[in-house]
């Protein structure tokens, strides 16, 4: 049995960790936090030069022909470093949608540019507060799109968006996907305040914006579910990376910070918080590995594995990031310490592909279907 990443994959991980430690320390992430930039362009370019952006894409579309396991590793390292780059929007969503549903021509047109980082993509589907359902998608589609999407991650820097729009009857079967050039006429956008300023989001208004169809008419909702399962696995690794880093920060601080004449890490009250963080991070990692296996082998278990990974990783990241702040005490609530960056990222990621309770719901549905409760 080898339920682990290969040695080559592990050396990719080491290489990436070294690169990010140098290129994307939190001082760099803070440039975006302070509004000096919308993303860390130099980190994005560096990732492109390393071949990381196209690592999972087929060679005929400018990728390195790697697989999903490589993407898992990349996502984990980016999550650990809190990298302020549009990897999830552009690679895990936009490129995946095109790879999955695009015509040959669309793949040739977009994927090499996404793989080289020359083009940034995103996915725009939310329109109103509350859970997204097919009936809550009101943007109208066709040759031109009209309506408003909010919030759209990386919406200010993306060149293209995959947009979910209605161009048919009510319900699921009326939803289709479109590719829209965000720099074209008929598109206006503005930054909206979001709880994690290191990953800016936008409001995008389409007023007859030219659009090209992606995939067949009426198949949008199904495509979203398919691509979201894959993205749930990959972002679970991003969450696991963040959870691990938050745990390390708390551990390091507990070793260094003295109170009552001793390191606070010698108090059981602190030890037990850290032990529980370790437990949740470990469970999340193991669930993520299972999902990585299912994704990389095309297993029929993917739907339940993806939901389990998503639920486990969301909870672990929230748990580890909030307790990282707790262990740091008052200093953890300062702008200067990095605790809040993880706390904010964890809570934005918790809703990115739909809320925790929606994924819990999916998980139970899927376990019932597979009739495999444990």
């Amino acid at each position, binding site marked *: 049995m*080898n339920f682990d*990443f290969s040695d080559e994959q592990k050396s990719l991980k080491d290489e990436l960790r070294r690169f990010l430690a140098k290129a994307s320390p939190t001082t760099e992430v803070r440039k975006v936090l302070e509004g000096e930039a919308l993303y860390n362009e130099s980190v994005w370019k560096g990732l492109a030069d390393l071949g990381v952006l196209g690592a999972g894409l087929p060679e005929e579309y400018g990728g390195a022909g790697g697989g999903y396991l490589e993407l898992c590793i990349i996502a984990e390292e980016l999550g650990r470093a809190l990298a302020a780059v549009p990897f999830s929007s552009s690679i895990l969503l936009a490129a995946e949608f095109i790879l999955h549903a695009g015509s040959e021509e669309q793949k040739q047109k977009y994927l090499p540019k996404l793989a080289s980082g020359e083009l940034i993509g995103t996915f725009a589907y939310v329109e109103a507060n509350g859970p997204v359902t097919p009936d809550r998608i009101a943007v109208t589609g066709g040759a031109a799109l009209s309506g408003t999407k909010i919030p759209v991650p990386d919406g200010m820097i993306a060149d293209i968006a995959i947009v979910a729009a209605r161009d048919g009857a009510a319900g699921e079967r009326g939803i289709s996907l479109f590719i829209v050039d965000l720099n074209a006429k008929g598109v206006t956008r503005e930054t909206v305040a979001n709880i994690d300023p290191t990953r800016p989001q936008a409001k995008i208004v389409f007023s007859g914006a030219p659009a090209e169809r992606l995939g067949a008419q009426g198949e949008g909702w199904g495509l979203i579910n398919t691509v979201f399962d894959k993205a749930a696995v990959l972002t679970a690794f991003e969450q696991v990376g963040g959870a691990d880093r938050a745990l390390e920060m708390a551990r390091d601080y507990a070793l260094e910070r003295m109170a009552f004449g001793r390191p606070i890490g010698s108090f059981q009250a602190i030890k037990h918080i850290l*032990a529980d963080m*370790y437990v949740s991070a470990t469970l999340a990692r193991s669930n993520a590995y*299972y999902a990585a296996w299912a994704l*990389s082998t095309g297993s029929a278990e993917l739907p339940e594995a993806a939901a389990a990974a998503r*639920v486990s990783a969301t909870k672990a990241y929230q748990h580890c990031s909030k307790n990282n702040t707790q262990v740091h005490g008052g200093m953890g609530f300062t702008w200067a310490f990095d605790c809040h960056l993880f706390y904010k990222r964890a809570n934005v990621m918790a809703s990115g592909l739909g809320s925790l309770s929606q*994924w819990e719901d999916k998980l*139970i549905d899927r*376990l019932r279907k597979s009739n495999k409760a444990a």
Partner: protein
Amino acid sequence: MNFDDTPEEAKFRQVARDWIKANAPHELYEDLANQGFGGAGGKQKSRTDGIATAKAWQKKKAEAGWACLNWPTEYGGRGATPIERVIWGQEEGVYGKLSGLFIIGHGMCGPTVMAYADEETKRRLLPPLASGENIWCQLFSEPAGGSDLAGLRTKAEKDGNDWVINGQKIWTSGAQHSDYGILITRTDPNVPKHKGMTMFWLDMKSPGVEVRPIKQANGQSEFNEVYFTDVRIHDSQRLGAVNDGWKVSLTTLMNERLTIGGSMSTGFSELFDFCSRIQTEDGLAIEDRAVRSKLADWAVKTSGLKYTGMRAISAVSKGENPGPENSIGKLVAGAMMQDIATYALDLQAQGGALNDPDLADFGARFQAMLLRSPATRIEGGSDEILRNIIAERVLGLPADIRVDKDVPFNKIPTSGRG
């Protein structure tokens, strides 16, 4: 990344599978598969038959070379590799539950004897332990020393070539069925507590040994008190040097890390099944969002434990030591079982109070789980001790500052009321 056996592993698995198919007590399959969480409604089955059945299966395995697989053959084992032992455990499946009586002997007493006894003693004691002919217990915990094991007070005093033992042990699993035990004692109370203990093995039929079963909060009796009154043990039964018993006990406790990759019951599959069948005010419980949210939390903990085990097995398969992530198993599973039982009773509303297998939902299994689970969170390392272990050994946090470390044992305060 895969779950596949190597060719050697696959070959070994096939041999194990064939032997089990030809030899296992298949008539017990149903019973064993549904067993767990103690008897429901306080209706405990007699264990006499259970012991005979367990011994018969163990003997059969030993004769064919399937007992204590990782032990050397001269001590009754198979000389198997760690991964072969894991594979055997997977293939033995529910029949492994028959070995409950032997877990402490095989997992803890045997390895300690192997590490510290002389060759003649090992060849005499170990094979009948492996084959299930003899049952062993571990006489460690005391009324004054549970989590703080080194607080133990049972005295061993030298008298010629003998040691004379006086004192009391508690929480000894299986003492009432045991032929032998390993015993840790206080041999010097004038030095700090970790430096004055000595380990022995002894015959449980020695004069002066008295076993009294403890009636537990759930009505059952799995554990015992063991009293020692002027029990004489020959010096040749000493394991390790005089006053070096703490080091010896660590060997034992290192082996307490249960079978790698073995999954502890959490009650999740039972609860999932239950929620798929029972009605709440608004229909099937499993259709309810609130119920689903709870189930999802326990589902991912259960699968997280399962795949953490798979990661450990992969490490063993590659000849590495499994990482520390294994230490989380009992901590997660024990608390989860208690929470699951509490929630299952909540779904049963007033009927949850019933504790008769013929009257309560699901044969009163959740009631049995509710009443047994407090012990799971304490036995074999309490939740708090496990968290300390994770914090100190895995995360590298400093040990607690201790007030009893450099104090002679007999000067340590024994009452919180001064």
